[in-house]
């Protein structure tokens, strides 16, 4: 395998990077860890004429507490940075566990959170839980910046609302009402396998009553998908096994899986049902795991 030729830029500042992206146009590709970009280029699935590396941009890999107990995750943080982050281990260990399920240790040392999002792969491991936790993202462009819910970011496989000149710089997880959250991935091998189906759940419990629930499905639609009907079924209700099963069935109906080499549509739909119940139970009973 080989990498086709490309121009390489490593701007020193964010604004320089955005200007460069604007100038270079759609054939330029932002490059953070590069694990996804390089493997796609080697497989001739991606042919960028230019690569704009973020390696010289400082401060984008920090994971810290911001105002109002917001958790701020720099987009250049690697998956292993997430796993090792004391802030996350304290606030959202579920995110550490979700990060741990991506690829393998070597890739987690290089692959960034930002990359995992911007690639917009439907089976990516971080988006479902980040959406469930209501994460917002900051996009910085040549002419300004914007903050939007991650939920509104994806538009299709490998497609999102990001503009040519924009760079994803950070995630903001505001203080949540949720008492528990989790991500369950179903894959065909215990490591190094893409999700066949995945479910993230976040719940705000008061005793046995669910005040709020978010359920986000992965790998079963063109984008990560909120199972809103299932969420509504739970809101304000006392949790019973039956209710969880109904929520699972509702989520299953809301999913829009395709058949591919990893699993049939029918199988995925049923996995959503099972995993939704399991994720909810886990988030309800075990907190942020």
């Amino acid at each position, binding site marked *: *395998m080989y990498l086709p030729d490309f*121009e390489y830029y490593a701007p020193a500042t964010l604004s320089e990077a955005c200007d460069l992206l604007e100038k270079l146009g759609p054939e330029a590709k932002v490059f953070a860890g590069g*694990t996804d970009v390089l493997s796609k280029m080697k497989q001739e699935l991606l042919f960028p004429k230019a690569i704009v590396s973020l390696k010289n941009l400082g401060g984008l890999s920090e994971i810290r507490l911001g105002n109002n107990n917001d958790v701020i995750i720099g987009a250049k943080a690697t998956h292993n940075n997430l796993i090792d982050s004391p802030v996350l281990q304290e606030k959202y260990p579920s995110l550490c566990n979700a990060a741990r399920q991506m690829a393998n*240790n*070597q*890739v987690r040392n290089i692959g960034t959170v930002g990359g995992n999002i911007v690639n917009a792969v439907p089976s990516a491991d971080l988006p479902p839980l980040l959406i469930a936790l209501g994460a917002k993202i900051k996009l910085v462009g040549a002419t300004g910046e914007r903050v939007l819910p991650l939920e509104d970011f994806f538009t299709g496989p490998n497609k999102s609302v990001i503009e040519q000149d924009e760079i994803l710089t950070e995630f903001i997880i505001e203080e949540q009402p949720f008492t528990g959250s989790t991500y369950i991935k179903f894959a065909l091998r215990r490591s*190094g396998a893409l999700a066949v189906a995945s479910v993230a759940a976040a719940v705000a419990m008061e005793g046995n009553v669910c005040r709020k629930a978010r359920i986000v499905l992965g790998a079963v639609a063109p984008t990560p998908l909120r199972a809103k009907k299932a969420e509504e079924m739970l809101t304000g209700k006392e949790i019973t096994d039956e209710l969880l099963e109904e929520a699972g069935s509702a989520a299953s109906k809301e999913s829009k899986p395709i058949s591919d080499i990893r699993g049939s549509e029918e199988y995925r739909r049923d996995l959503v049902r099972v995993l939704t119940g399991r994720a909810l139970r886990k988030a309800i009973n075990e907190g942020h795991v």
Partner: protein
Amino acid sequence: MQKIEDHSGTKYYLITLKVNGDSYTRAVKANTLLVNVLREDLDLTGTKKGCELGDCGSCTVLLDGKPVNSCLILALEADGHEITTIEGLAQNDKPDKLQEAFVENAAIQCGYCTPGMIMSAKALLTRNPHPTEGEVREAIAGNLCRCTGYVNIVKAIMSAAEEQQ
């Protein structure tokens, strides 16, 4: 990073890698991968190419102490960083304890995955000198081995960890 152009306009970048404690400066093209600099320019062929897509771990080296797939890293991105390859573990030709444990526990067959496997294990033991078996398996899950079923590999890593005690 200094950029140079040859007569045909091809751009080269001057990079410096600190490999196994020594500094090497080389002119590379943007599309040069770290694994190719190590193998072809520095003749450090202990780092293997298995799948070239980050799935097998044969090309694992330590980048600032962390195991990474050198097939998915641009040489330019490694500029200025410290890299340890399998050749960097033995001291004056005396194998590292972990390397010895692999030999003694029959953890090697064809040997093609071995360097990458040892680098992953080395990083684990540096970070976590007394891992559980589960932690060992997790640490080497990105290193595929087609020969051993990992049985003796896990045994070797655990025994090297015990020896450290």
